[in-house]
């Protein structure tokens, strides 16, 4: 029942101009699987956020122009998208502490222009897993029929960090 039906893999240069290509691919695959429009848009955005992070952070300090690997695992009931880079890994717990919605009562000068990406991923996907180590792997899951999903996927602690 829980076996992957198909796997689609792509490797792209870790450059901002290719993030749009990944978005188009997400859209094509999710559309084929019968996701609703809003879910497709959510996934496009979440996957793009993960790719943008890989482009921005993972290769900042390395001279080598890196690659991003995107793997789509198609299940009966869900789509899992893994975004993998080989760049510098980071302190996941520290980053998560800094990421979150903008708070109205905070001073405007302290508002950060970045850091909303991870928060958006968590809000838009059913499940977000981040694995550190050699590079970073972000795994994003969306179920095809939300009505049939176990209630536990909507628990407040959706993100698991495994380092």
């Amino acid at each position: 029942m829980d076996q992957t039906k198909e796997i689609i893999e792509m490797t792209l240069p870790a450059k901002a101009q290719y993030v749009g290509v990944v978005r188009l691919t997400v859209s094509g695959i999710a559309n084929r699987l019968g996701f609703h429009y809003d879910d497709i848009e959510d996934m496009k955005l979440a996957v793009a956020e993960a790719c943008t992070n890989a482009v921005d952070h993972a290769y900042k300090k390395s001279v080598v122009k890196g690659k991003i690997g995107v793997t789509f695992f198609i299940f009966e009931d869900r789509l899992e998208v893994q975004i993998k880079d080989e760049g510098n890994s980071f302190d996941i717990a520290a980053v998560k502490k800094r990421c979150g919605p903008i708070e109205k009562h905070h001073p405007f000068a302290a508002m950060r222009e970045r850091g909303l990406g991870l928060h958006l991923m968590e809000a838009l996907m059913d499940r977000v897993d981040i694995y550190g180590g050699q590079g970073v792997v972000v795994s994003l899951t969306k179920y095809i029929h939300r009505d049939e999903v176990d209630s536990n996927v909507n628990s407040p602690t959706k993100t698991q960090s495994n380092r």
Partner: protein
Amino acid sequence: MNVTIEEQIRSDQERTLVVSGEVDAFTAPQLREKLMPLCQENCKVYLNLSQVDYMDSTGLGVLIGAFKKLRSQRGRLILTGVSPRLKRLLNITGLSEILEIEDRV
């Protein structure tokens, strides 16, 4: 996967930028380049987003940067033509509580 930005002059201290297309990591720098110079003292900048098909956190970051710059100089940033999709992102990120959003374009 492109963005076009058109500037309209409303008055001495009021400008409108009409943004069309997709605002992502690749195109957000173009938006920043057009928007930031308009963020001057006492200026009102309208950002017409009705033609925006896609915007992610890099685009939202540009909005935050412009908002902060205007705010510190008694200026205003006003978003118009916000789609339900974009409104949702502004709600999730908490930006809808802070940014000025006008329904009419």
